[in-house]
């Protein structure tokens, strides 16, 4: 923790003189007395530390100010590439998790009555280890699996722990986030992601992503720069999201039909010869096949599917061509095609091909492959390499296109039902409430011999577990360095800001190191997180202390990106794959063509459920944060959104309570009647419907989107199909 003594001059102190003037009634009020004393020179020692926010995956850098051991102010670090000096509401609010009354404070074990009892760490470790050993001896290490939402230390320690046990089954939350998108991109361009050069673009189209709701501050800044530069910004989204303030046009597409729009815009470019023919000829493979396959995917055809007038589709495509190569479709994240529909992976593939038609790869204002840096080899004696497990990650056979770095976590439900998986660990993951149908998951996990959840509060996943281990909050620990790709790549540090609030909690590095010891594989964990962090940083010419002194962020200017570099496509063919052999093998069309979503609302009182972030929440993890949930309560943000015309037809008024129902679930909530949503869609904010009574702030507020989503998995890609859900809506009591 770097320490700076700062004289704290309270706000009131500066005004004390003015108070004196105002206090002419002849006495000095307590406030004035207190202010006068403040002016008299309270001098408090303030310490500061640089850390990384944990309220979403962006992990923005900030300086935490600590007075008398307690976190006070948070200032976004100007040098951090994602933050650029400003944090979002979630960042400021989520910090209160450290002091939450609902923190998990001791290891818990579920007793025969299904109630949790506090136990010692030693007991927890030895009992868990005993069960792990029993599972390995009867079913092999492949019957163990881990699900985690990646964080700097968590990614490393969870994987190392599982590999030490001999299991390759380490999953991220990806199947319920961006697995289909990244896997689809990989089929087309050999990379799981790219970055749109929004700020320098002449035109950028966002599909399902909202920079103003799923906020990464630097993205918002980029969008503003784009506007100042005169870029044309298009939002394709069934919901007129909050980014509209910074955009030129809202295209209110029917949910689940983005693929048809992208194919039809491609059709326009090809038919009219408006694409970059040289770029396609040089870089592509299978173009003619694709062009022939989508020859009938015209704007007129797409109008019937997407609800977007053919003239609009034509206009947007032509404008793209005029703006190329300083134009692209932005890669999105979870949004509309990260994991939502039966056609999400194919949508991702088509978007890469459309960008290829624009010839915008690595062009200023186009779509970029930005450099990143990673830690090199560390001392093999101190940090011995773990032998790679023999088996492949479960799910890779059934979903061959899914990136193995993420894995198809939802398949674990079926593997647990079949008895192929016996032991499951969760770190920083609320799978049971956020990834797929909660009832289906709960029933599946009840078959396990061992379920362990590590978290800071009693999540719905924790509630299902046999053992719950209390994590420290992100403010209370040092983590491994976090490498951040970008135009100038960087490395950043989550340092300890405050001491442990609850003495019996432990950070993730300690938990897995000690658990490994108990499981008999402790030889791979004979080091501290400080030692490994320092060793990793030394491989890139830095040190732990050096990075602290540098303010928590260091850049690698020698790796700076430059426009125009030829791309080395890391696909099997070394080309942009308009046609993919792997997709064909997986039972899909070799070239991306229209694929229907699995479900479609039939009109009447039927709607498709769509989710999406609000600017104050991330998934289910922030719902129990008081400063954030207070906003939800004050502004009724838990309401579902319904199109005004549809509401009028159904006799539903703004603020009415409605019953939302399908075969999976029935629930009641109030409705926001609005012009801001496509008639087919019912927006159910993704953050609510908490069923854990120990989360006193979040419990029982609003609906949980996933309750309405039938359990299903996207063919080939493995996404959780989180918006393949149809519901009926009626006024409550009607």
């Amino acid at each position, binding site marked *: 923790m770097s320490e700076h003594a700062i004289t704290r001059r309270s706000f009131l102190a500066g005004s004390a003189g003015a108070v004196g*003037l105002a206090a002419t009634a002849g006495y000095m009020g307590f*406030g004035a007395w207190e202010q006068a004393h403040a002016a008299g020179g309270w001098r408090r020692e303030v310490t500061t530390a640089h850390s990384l926010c944990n309220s979403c995956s962006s992990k923005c850098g900030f300086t935490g100010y600590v007075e008398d051991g307690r976190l006070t102010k*948070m200032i976004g670090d100007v040098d951090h590439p994602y933050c650029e000096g400003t*944090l979002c509401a979630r960042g400021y609010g989520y910090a209160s998790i450290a002091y939450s009354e609902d923190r998990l404070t001791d290891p818990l074990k579920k007793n025969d009555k299904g109630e949790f009892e506090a136990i010692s760490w030693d007991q927890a470790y030895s009992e868990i280890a005993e069960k792990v050993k029993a599972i390995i001896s009867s079913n092999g290490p492949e019957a163990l699996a881990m699900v985690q939402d990646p964080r700097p230390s968590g990614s490393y320690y969870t994987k190392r722990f599982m590999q030490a046990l001999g299991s390759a089954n380490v999953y991220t939350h990806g199947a319920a986030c961006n697995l289909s998108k990244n896997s689809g991109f990989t089929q087309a361009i050999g990379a799981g992601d790219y970055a749109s050069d929004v700020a320098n673009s002449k035109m950028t189209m966002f599909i399902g992503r909202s920079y103003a709701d799923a906020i990464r501050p630097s993205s918002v800044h980029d969008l503003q720069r784009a506007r100042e530069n005169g870029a044309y910004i298009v939002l394709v989204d069934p919901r007129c999201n909050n980014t509209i*303030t910074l955009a030129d046009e809202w295209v209110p597409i029917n949910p689940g039909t983005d693929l048809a729009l992208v194919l039809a815009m491609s059709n326009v470019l090809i038919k009219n010869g408006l694409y970059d023919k040289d770029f396609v000829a040089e870089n592509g493979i299978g173009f003619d096949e694709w062009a022939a396959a989508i020859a009938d995917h015209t704007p007129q055809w797409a109008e019937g599917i997407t609800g977007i007038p053919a003239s609009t589709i034509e206009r947007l495509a032509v404008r793209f061509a005029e703006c190329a190569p300083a134009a692209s479709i932005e890669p999105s994240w979870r949004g509309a095609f990260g994991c939502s529909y039966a056609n999400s992976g194919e949508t991702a593939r088509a978007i890469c091909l459309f960008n290829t038609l624009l010839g915008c790869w690595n062009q200023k204002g186009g779509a970029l492959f930005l450099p990143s840096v990673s830690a090199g080899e560390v001392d093999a004696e101190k940090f011995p390499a773990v032998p790679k497990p023999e088996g492949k990650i479960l799910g890779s056979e059934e979903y061959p296109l899914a990136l193995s770095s993420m894995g198809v976590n939802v398949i674990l439900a079926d593997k647990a039902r079949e008895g192929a998986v016996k032991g499951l660990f969760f770190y920083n993951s609320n799978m049971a409430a956020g990834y797929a149908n909660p009832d289906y998951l709960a029933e599946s996990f009840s078959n396990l011999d061992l379920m362990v959840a590590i978290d800071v509060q009693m999540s719905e996943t924790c509630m299902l577990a046999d053992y719950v281990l209390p994590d420290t909050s992100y403010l209370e620990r040092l983590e491994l360095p976090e490498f951040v790709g970008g135009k100038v790549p960087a490395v950043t540090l989550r340092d300890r800001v405050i001491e442990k609030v609850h003495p019996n909690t432990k950070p993730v590095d300690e938990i897995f190191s000690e658990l490994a010891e108990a499981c008999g594989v402790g030889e791979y964990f004979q080091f501290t997180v400080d030692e490994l962090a320092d060793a990793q940083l030394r491989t890139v010419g830095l040190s732990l202390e050096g990075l602290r002194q540098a303010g928590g962020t260091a850049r690698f200017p020698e790796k700076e990106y430059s426009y125009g570099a030829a791309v080395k496509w890391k696909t099997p063919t070394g080309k942009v794959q308009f046609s993919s052999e792997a997709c064909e093998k997986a039972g899909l069309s070799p070239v991306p063509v229209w694929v229907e979503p699995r479900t479609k609302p039939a009109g009447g009182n039927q709607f498709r459920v769509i989710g999406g972030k609000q600017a104050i929440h991330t998934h289910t993890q922030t719902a129990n944060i008081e*400063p954030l949930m207070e906003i939800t309560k004050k502004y009724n943000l838990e309401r579902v959104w319904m199109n005004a015309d549809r509401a009028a037809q159904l006799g539903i008024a703004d603020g009415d309570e409605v019953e939302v129902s399908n075969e999976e679930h029935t629930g009641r909530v109030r409705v926001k009647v609005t012009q801001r949503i496509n008639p087919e869609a019912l927006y159910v904010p993704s953050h609510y419907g908490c069923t854990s009574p120990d989360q006193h702030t979040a419990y029982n507020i609003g609906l949980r989107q996933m309750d309405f989503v039938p359990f299903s998995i996207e063919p080939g890609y493995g996404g959780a199909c989180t918006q393949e859900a149809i519901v009926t809506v009626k006024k409550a009591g009607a």
Partner: protein
Amino acid sequence: MARYGMLINTKKCIGCYACRVACQRQNDLLPTEDFIRYEEKETGTYPTVRVETVPLQCMHCEDAPCAAVCPTGAAYIGADGIVQVDHGRCIGCKYCMAACPYQVRVFNEETGTVDKCRFCTVSAETSGTKMCSCVEACLTGARLFGDLDDPESDIAQEIAATNAQPIAGDLTKAKIFYVR
């Protein structure tokens, strides 16, 4: 003496609540103490629709109804024109809350007193924030703070350039100006 004021450009506001939560964190407020509240206005019909978010907070009125009705002098206008609350004198009668046409004063259930935006820039510069917390936190730079009487200040020039106006005209001689 400076005459402090603020400009809020709602054309840049994305309705993200960062200003509210930053204000609470940096000023150590309760989760229920919201010095900034929001009015959201939707105009047009599907699919041609626009959304405006208007953040509201203490306008630091020169003709301040809260100060006029306060029976104890707890609500008063300081020498620098910043409307203040002397918590030692506040008896929690809420007259000021009823009188405020902007409904931006909040009751602190723990202390039993009323509070509101303090234009915190004046004091905060030595402990982290260089500017009002809300101004610093704004992701889109929708807010400006400064001396309304200094013709060279950013805020004075921006008000002149955009013809920014108080939210309710000259009702209370408010010192927050809006671009809408």
